[in-house]
């Protein structure tokens, strides 16, 4: 690691002010950022720790019935407390290991937007809203490719709001070594249609599988997916699986997600 200062603001306002310092970077649970610093792949001069910002922590239900999760809320807290949204809680309960879940946060996961992370699928599949210190961003506008998001420099995710679907399920096929998603599919059925979000597979990061959404919106059964497939082109191809294999897994995992709740 290189040397850096640490700021520990107690409010969003103080955090935003601290982020104004030269080469400042937000620190959530540090599960991605700290290893990066240890490898000397990043050299921020100030880390602004968000874990003491009380207003960014916790799970509650908003006036409109949406599930609100503070941006600095850990995966373990979501797994335990997001009881209104069991599919999301279950997803959070399978991220990493207990140490990762006790530190890693929803804001950090979304800001990082790892192409194999779980939360991007949950957020896009739910059509959630990412709330920052300056604005509200619809999930469909938020994810902009591998490790790329709509966030501006210094912008902080303060909250994420999830509409609660009638039925939902997340199926994760793990990459054997990291146990991130080799392919993860989040299926959510709302009154006005079904959303299917896929993580782990595409070179462009999380995406919605529109053919599957259309088929499931008219018939919410695994059978409705028969014959639907994705091409391996544009899918990640690495040691753990070719693009064709990932494309195949997307179809299998989508069916399993539907089967689990239909």
């Amino acid at each position, binding site marked *: 690691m290189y040397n850096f200062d640490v700021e520990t603001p107690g409010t969003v306002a103080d955090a935003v002010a601290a982020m104004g310092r030269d080469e400042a970077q937000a620190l959530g649970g540090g599960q991605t950022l700290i290893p990066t610093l240890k490898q000397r792949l990043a050299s921020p001069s100030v880390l602004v720790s968000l874990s003491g910002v009380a207003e960014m922590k916790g799970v509650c239900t908003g006036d409109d019935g949406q599930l609100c999760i503070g941006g600095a809320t850990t995966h373990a807290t979501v797994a335990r407390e997001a009881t209104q949204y069991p599919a999301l809680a279950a997803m959070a309960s399978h991220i990493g290991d207990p140490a990762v879940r006790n530190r890693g946060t929803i804001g950090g996961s979304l800001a990082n937007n790892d192409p194999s992370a779980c939360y991007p699928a949950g957020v896009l599949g739910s059509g959630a809203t990412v709330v920052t210190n300056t604005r509200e961003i619809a999930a469909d506008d938020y994810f902009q490719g591998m490790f790329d998001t709509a966030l501006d420099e210094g912008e902080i995710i303060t909250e994420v709001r999830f509409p609660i679907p009638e039925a939902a399920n997340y199926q994760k096929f793990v990459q054997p*070594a990291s146990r991130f998603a080799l392919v993860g599919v989040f299926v959510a059925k709302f009154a006005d249609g079904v959303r299917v979000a896929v993580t782990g597979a595409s070179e462009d990061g999380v995406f919605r599988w529109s053919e599957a959404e259309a088929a499931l919106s008219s018939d919410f059964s695994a059978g409705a997916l028969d014959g639907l497939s994705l091409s391996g082109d544009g899918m990640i191809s690495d040691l753990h699986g070719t693009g064709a294999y990932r494309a195949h897994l997307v179809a299998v995992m989508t069916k399993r997600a539907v089967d689990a709740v239909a």
Partner: protein
Amino acid sequence: MPKDGGIGASSKRREDVRFLTGTGNYTDDINIHGQAHVFFLRSDIAHGTITSVDTGAAEGMPGVVKVFTGADFEAVGGMPCGWQVTDKHGQPMQEPKHPILAHGKVRHVGEPIAAVVADTLEQARDAAEAIVVDIDELPAVVDMKAAVASDDVKVHDDLTSNLCYDWGFVEENKDATDAAFEAAAHVTTLELVNNRLVANPMEPRVAVGDYARGTDESTLYTTSQNPHVIRLLMGAFVLGIPEHKLRVVAPDVGGGFGTKIFHYQEEAFCTFAAKACNRAVKWTSSRSEAFMSDAHGRDHVTKIELALDGDNNFTAVRTETYANMGAYLSTFAPSIPTWLHGTLMAGNYKTPLIYVNVKAVFTNTVPVDAYRGAGRPEATFQLERVIDKAARELGVDPVELRRQNFITEFPYATPVAVEYDTGDYHATMDKVLEISDRDGFAARRAESEAKGKLRGFGINCFIEACGIAPSNLVGQLGARAGLYESATVRVNATGGLVVMTGSHSHGQGHETSFAQVVADMIGIDENMVEIVHGDTSKTPMGMGTYGSRSIAVGGSAMVRATEKIIAKAKKIASHLLEASESDIELKDGAFSVAGTDKSVAWGDVTLAAYVPHNYPLEDIEPGLEETAFYDPSNFTYPAGAYTCEVEVDPATGEVTIERFASADDFGNVVNPMIVEGQVHGGIAQGIGQALLENCSYDENGQLLTASYMDYTMPRADNLPQMDHYVVDHSCQTPCTHNPLGVKGCGEAGAIGSPPTVINAIIDALQSGGHDVAHIDMPATPARVWAAMHG
């Protein structure tokens, strides 16, 4: 009846108390007043010519004590190789120089180019970033066959080619073997890969060099399985320090699995730099460094052929193997694919003719050397896979095909130069079929199929050769070391004992099991015996721990030394009891005169030895301390049969291990609990190799699996539930040539299990109508799915 002490008792591992309560003393726990830290600048290029290394800026950085480059080591020796293999033409292998810090060229990613010693590690690292290295990158060679096929890319310019040696074994049998293939009724051929592995002991390597100017003594604290070997190699061949001025200490070591046998550059560096800087110098490997600097394991590409006659008797085996050496020869690398691999190719079978060809190849990768099993897993995998394939081709039961060809008479001289002393392969086969409930498999398969899964049953045998010996023979085979073991037994005045053993314990539980043996021989409580190991200033010259040799060789040395103690103690007792020495009996810690009620306690005798008032001083010396060196007359040959049941998810290719059973013959067993733990752990590593682990390079020599994000370690949930993970060692044919009748159990699990898993997967896939004859390890979901879909 389970015993509650001594040989055969499952005594709890006494060393675990300190390991589990954080009171162990690992090398990284050793901090010497005023120590400096070293950071190694390692190559991120696989192959290239170093045109300049500019350390000027780095030397002026805060805290920097000294910056070293390859030029600083021109006067000292390179890293030595401990085994010279002679090729099939009678020529010695090609043996390249192996510098402590790269000189002239870099040859693999991770090779150290420069080293910065500074007050703190972070300062050393900061300064290392200021070193300017210019390297003219050269194409890298990673694929072994390409490396041999052409000299376009040579790893070592001063060698004639990338071929280290081309070994034929037994060369005199080659023509007869070829003729047997001509005459065969059936020939089964299999091409396969034995995947490259990274050992990944929980504790990474650490070295602390210290130098006492007042006495001109150097001390190295290091994570080693064999401190005496390191002292000899480093002192005599690298740094030129006489052994009496060099102490090597390997304190608590958190796992070795082979990769801590070897002498590494970092050890020599820290010892050298401590003197050069007149300060202790410490290095603790990061996990990332471990991936690119610990010697890797396995990495063979093999074609094996099995010839059978019309009655399905094996008539000949012929193999051709490419074995990766990496960029340099690690300490024992040349011996692994030859003497620890070719000699095992008979397996459990009476195949009359065997010819093994091995081409050892230099590539731009990390050096490869012994890893748990070392050569024997490679032999077992190919042999047991080709037998399984033959059974399928011939439509016969794989169990019966094996049984029909078993060796049944002992001693048995194989056509690959070893003589098995004892064994009973039908007994272990019977046992494994019983404990695995093979008869119930059909019902379990039907249950799996009802869930949409494919279920397979895999079975195979294995044989291992442990405690490689005798020294004069291995010397003829090219070993540059002896392979005896030593022990000093020191009895204290009040009756307690300290055993100083040349074996080293780094997870094996020697402090418990060795004490059991000595306590049993004397008939005293185990807690009266203390085991000391791992410090060249305390223990007699010993060869350390690897190759499942500790109880068979180190234990035997300890028995011999204890026998000397008992013989002398009987003399003292006969004096105290005023009886003839031949009438003295030792039982339950007391000496008695046969046929009388006269006796004297162990403690009375030991006290007399050190307070010799009433003592036959004219006949025997006072004191009670004896040393023995034991050089075995042969290897030991543990063997067994393993079964595995897998479920395959046909939609994803995912494989789960539902059941695993092992029936091993380890001869006599000193501590059943420790033996079972060794087998469980070995099988876990074998399952790791079969399903999960793979060290992978791209064509430019970049390491793709350089962290746990991509290198898959086995975890508890990859293994079957304990009630379906049965390890049995009740079949026992004691070794005939060592005093304990023991054979060694450390590597068996890792040797026997990889083919079991693959055999089971093939069985599952074929039951689902998939015409898959072989699948390379690791059988990841992606690979299994691809195999199922052509």
